[in-house]
């Protein structure tokens, strides 16, 4: 076969960074399992937890009464449910916890209840208020619902943080070690490919992915649970980007020496599990003792979750999340440089 002499013009190909990134994206989207764990799983998790911990209207208090007059008097209050029983049956119902309160006709009207049971005390207060409408001074009820006070409001930013962590760790750490075991890294080393560009392609991939992951979770939270973003969307994106970079760096670092996928899986779990539990994904870090708080605060996922919640729920500005952002940026820089130094290419 004859071929024209090679020349740069006949063959200028795409930029290596772009081709490497493209390959990463293609390989990801051709792996249905990876797509599910990255995009589907966090959504399913938020649905399950959102349902389990939804805010329900208060249970009605159940009151046993012995006369129809009392029953109609108490029916004025919507949160009281009344049952008309004779006195022995009413006492029995109270004893077995089927009703919270027994009201005996008077005079004087008697309340039978167990003061040790909060729901009994509540029922007594409600019944009393219904039987003796309040006189002056007149009062008025003003129900207050704090924005962002539901569990799901707390959960969605935590899930975003968790998602950025696990996608970075698995999507980079595991994938690189797999390339090492398959000798693909060695093969790439036999080309003039720039090593820094190779590592950068993973970082670029994570940044691009963020543009899919973030709208998906935030949009889902808004549509399904009406979880608002109180603060600046741009700041939220910036915080997420720093989080993605920090975990991209940690992902590179855990992958830098490991020779097989079992080792790297262990390392990834070793890094992630403590943060799953202690960095405020599912419940507040405030539940841990004061002595460990300084340690928790410097965990990258804690910083990321705190910053995400501050922006999403409290509408915090740049200045109030600067500390967390600095910590994330520092983590990204240090881990990337360390990974480049330690990396086992062969």
């Amino acid at each position, binding site marked *: *076969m004859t*071929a024209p002499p*090679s*020349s*740069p013009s*006949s*063959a200028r*190909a*795409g*930029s*290596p960074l*772009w*081709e*490497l990134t*493209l*390959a990463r994206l*293609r*390989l990801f989207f*051709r*792996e249905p399992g990876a797509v599910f764990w990255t995009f589907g799983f966090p959504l399913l998790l938020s649905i399950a937890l959102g349902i389990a911990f939804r805010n329900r209207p208060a249970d009605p208090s159940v009151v046993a009464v012995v006369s129809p007059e009392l029953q109609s008097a108490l029916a004025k209050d919507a949160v009281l449910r009344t049952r008309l029983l004779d006195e022995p049956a009413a006492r029995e119902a109270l004893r077995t916890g089927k009703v919270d309160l027994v009201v005996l006709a008077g005079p004087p009207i008697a309340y039978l209840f167990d003061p040790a049971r909060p729901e009994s005390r509540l029922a007594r207060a409600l019944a009393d208020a219904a039987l003796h409408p309040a006189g002056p001074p007149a009062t008025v009820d003003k129900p207050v619902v704090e924005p962002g006070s539901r569990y799901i409001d707390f959960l969605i930013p935590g899930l975003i943080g968790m998602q950025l962590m696990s996608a970075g760790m698995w999507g980079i750490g595991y994938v690189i070690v797999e390339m090492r075991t*398959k*000798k*693909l890294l*060695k*093969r*790439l*080393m*036999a*080309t*003039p*490919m720039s090593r820094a560009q190779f590592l950068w392609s993973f970082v670029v991939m994570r940044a691009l992915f963020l543009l899919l992951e973030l709208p998906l979770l935030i949009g889902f939270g808004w549509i399904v649970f009406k979880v608002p973003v109180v603060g600046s969307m741009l700041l939220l994106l910036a915080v997420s980007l720093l989080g993605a970079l920090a975990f991209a760096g940690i992902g590179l670092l855990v992958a830098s020496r490991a020779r097989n996928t079992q080792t790297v899986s262990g390392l990834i779990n070793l890094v992630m599990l403590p943060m799953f539990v202690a960095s405020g994904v599912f419940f507040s870090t405030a539940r841990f003792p004061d002595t460990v708080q300084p340690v928790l605060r410097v965990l990258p996922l804690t910083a990321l979750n705190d910053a995400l919640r501050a922006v999403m729920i409290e509408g915090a500005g740049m200045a109030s999340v600067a500390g967390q952002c600095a910590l994330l940026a520092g983590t990204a820089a240090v881990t990337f440089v360390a990974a480049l130094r330690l990396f086992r290419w*062969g």
Partner: protein
Amino acid sequence: MSAALRCEKLVKKYGDVTAVDGLDLEVSAGECFGLLGPNGAGKTTTVEILEGLNEPTAGSVEVLGRRWRSDERALRQRLGVSLQETHLPDRLTVEENLRMFRSFYERGRPVDEVLDLVELRDKRSSWTERLSGGQKQRLAVGCALVSDPELLFLDEPTTGLDPQSRRQLWDVVLGFKARGRTVLLTTHYMDEAERLCDRVAVVDKGKVIALGTPPELIASLGGQQVVELATERPLSPEDLAGLASVRSSRRNADGVALTVEQLHVALPAILARADPFGLTRLSTHHATLEDVFVHLTGRHLRE
């Protein structure tokens, strides 16, 4: 002709194990040079040192007149490498793989041309995981050809392939060589070395134990024919000593093998000597590089 590749007194030790033990090579520009030897002879270690992927414990390496330490980036632009086993990404297509590799080089051949070279045009949109063994191997070689290299390294390019796939790959190598380019390949198939290589270095235990063109190496046996015979009662090489036209003799698995210069002269005498021992089998073949290896080491290449 100038040397495309030269190494002197190459040594590579892994702890107490010496994989390469003072190996010298010189490959001329434009030749196809083969490293022939059994598994574990140190071929792959040698090639990876020459490819700049492994550091020698001692010795010097010069590739295309340059050294790895000072000129790595420039050198990589001019080489094509196919490793013994590379698992290219399963779910990239043939074409995507070639494009990715192409992007690493400043100059090279268009991807379409390489697809033709390695006969994978029909498969350009297939994922790597759906290719046959031979197609995968041709893709691996294709990835080494996208840079239009001056020097191509192939480490056991046809190991484990069926005969037809092997011949297809040989055609790719011969086509590359026909463009005046240099090839260094390792193999433990003597027929592959005979078919492709201008010169062969027989490697055993990290050393070159014979060097020359395949005909020269075969001629070094002293005879072009090999006679193998087996008998009912044990026959030793000494029993066949001193026969006309017999150049050497040695014991093999179930009898004796002789290298013979002129079959028609030697055969009647061999039959006469062997007959009393109860001849059960006699066969002859043209001497091959396998016979050279057995002659030199007493072992077979595939052992």
